[in-house]
């Protein structure tokens, strides 16, 4: 029987993979995708907790929708930034984006 713990485990694994991608990937697009992965891990948790603990409230589902909307906007802004940087530096490697330092 698949229960709450399985979903939470799935969410944790997804979040871990996403975090690894954010910290380790050099490609800006990949980092953006990893962020999406982390957001969706959170969505999984929201929906699962809503379903198993408070089915009547629907609060978790509502938040999941919000996160999807915000994530769409964030991807739009993020991609725009990356394209803008790419136009200047001909690169999407994060190691090249180190102008703001000491």
């Amino acid at each position, binding site marked *: 029987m698949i229960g709450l713990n399985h979903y939470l485990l799935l969410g944790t694994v997804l979040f871990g993979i996403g*975090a690894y991608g*954010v*910290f*380790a990937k050099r490609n800006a697009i990949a*980092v953006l995708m990893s962020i999406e992965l982390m957001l969706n891990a959170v969505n999984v948790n929201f929906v699962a907790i809503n379903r198993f603990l408070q089915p009547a409230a629907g609060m978790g589902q509502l938040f999941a929708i919000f996160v999807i909307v915000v994530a769409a906007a964030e991807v739009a802004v993020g991609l725009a930034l990356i394209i803008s940087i790419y136009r200047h530096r001909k690169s999407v490697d*994060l*190691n090249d*984006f*180190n*102008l*703001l*330092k*000491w």
Partner: protein
Amino acid sequence: MLIQDVMTFSWLIPVLPFLAFALIGLFLHRWPKWSAACSIAAIGVSFFLSVLIAVEIFGGDPGRAFEMSVRWLEMPGLKVDMGILIDPLTAVMLLVVTTVALLVQIYSLGYMEGDPGRASYFAYQSIFAGSMLGLVMASNFGQIFVFWELVGMCSYLLIGFWFGRPSARDAAIKAFVTNRIGDFGFLLGILFLIIVFGTLNFGELAALIPDYHNLAVLLPIAVLLFFGPVGKSAQFPLHVWLPDAMEGPTPVSALIHAATMVAAGVYLIARAFFIFSQVPQAMLLIALVGGFTALLAATIALVQNDIKRILAYSTLSQLGYMVMAMGVGAMTAGMFHLRTHAFFKGLLFLAAGSVIHALHGEQDIWKMGGLAKKMPITTWTFVIGALALAGIPPLAGFWSKDEILLGAFAGGYTGLYLLGSLVAFMTAFYMFRLIFIAFFGVSKGAEQAHESPPVMTGPLVILAALSIGAGFVGSPWMGNVFGLYISTPGAVHHPVNPTIMAVSSLLALAGIGLAWLIYQKQAVSAEKLRQRWPALYHVFLNKYYVDEFYAWLGKVFVDAGARVLEWVDLKIINGAVNGLAYLTGSSGRTLRYAVNGQVQSYAIWVMVGLVLLLATVLKTVFTVLV
């Protein structure tokens, strides 16, 4: 009934001059004449009240005293009163202070004529009179210290009255600083008294101390209290300020630096005699300091050329006499000499002021000469004062000086007696050296001198009369009434000794004769004497180089201290501040490498922080739950 009223209103004596000071300072200062009138009126009423009090006190039993006080502050282990104590000692001081202050203020009308600062001069005179009267009427050490400092402040203000002159400013500062040293010891002594006895009231202390036999405690108290008189009465080694204090107007020198304030130290010893007399070592110290000061100052006075400085060293010498009298236990004689000295030294200073006034500020005796014909009243009153100071019978100084010598001799201090006699001889010599040079002899540039106005000669004549007559109350002709009233347990009084009287009179006459031979008859050349003992002459002339020694001390110790403090400031204080700044800077320089521009490394740090935060929060939550 009236008598009781006089005592009840005695607090007005110091308060009236204070009121005059306030009035002048607030309203009258624009009209110098009204300021002077206000000041003189106040001291006049105080004088009148003092006379009434004297009549009351000396009309009654010797042991009579009147005390009235209000509690000023109280806390565990300390209570300080503000009050008045009137006993024969106070009554004598009241009379002396109000008489001289009144005469000096009247005299100042003439002397300060036309000075732009007259109004403030009279204001200072008033506040001085009020403080001095408060001092002599104080009923406890706390109060006496307050007024002690007030008269010191007045002295500072009046020495530096002509503050346009750098020498006057320096003298004022010197007087103030020197007095601070003495007052510091005095204050410590008072604090000791509070700690040990819990009270500062003279009467209560006088009852407690004779039964308190712990010399190890009483000795430091007595010595510390003696610091006060050493500073205020200008005893060696703090005597250096008094000669310089002559920078003030001459009436100020007469009132403050000859007759009253400098005598406050002697008065304090008399007032606190019940403490000093319990400690033989302290008494010996007092006697030696006094005797040494008397000799030191007399030798310096022998060769000075400034009329006021000669008188200043003479004052030092006579104060030394009084202090010595206290030290040998002859408290009555000391107070007696204080009283007579106030009159004749006040007279001498005022007469000197009259000369200086007539000569437009000339103070060098060698530039005077032949004044006797031009200024007869000034000259003859000065001579009377000098005779009284020299101790020629039957003038006032004879009786009091003789009593001091008698006290030293009969008390077994033969050395001090001989020293005192030598000083008496020198006193007569230097006073008449001054007189023969300045008043008789050949006129040198004093042709246009003229007698001073009556407002100045009047006080001179009155003081001359007092200089002649004030000694009789302590003479055997009047049964020594002075000693009957002014005495205290522990003070000794000796029967008259005709030999001592004769010897001291002869010595005084010899001194006058020698001065006559050298300076009038010129049978002995002063120049030859000078060449015979050049070293001695220069030591005297340069005041034993004490000022130079203090300057050297200041140079060595103060400068060394300054260098140490400079090092502390530069290395330790600046070091701490600069070190802190360097620490901040270097930590910033090191930590900035964390800001490497790599977004992902920031993200890792954020993550680490978040995890730590969560761990902490969750730990708390779990602790609460479990």
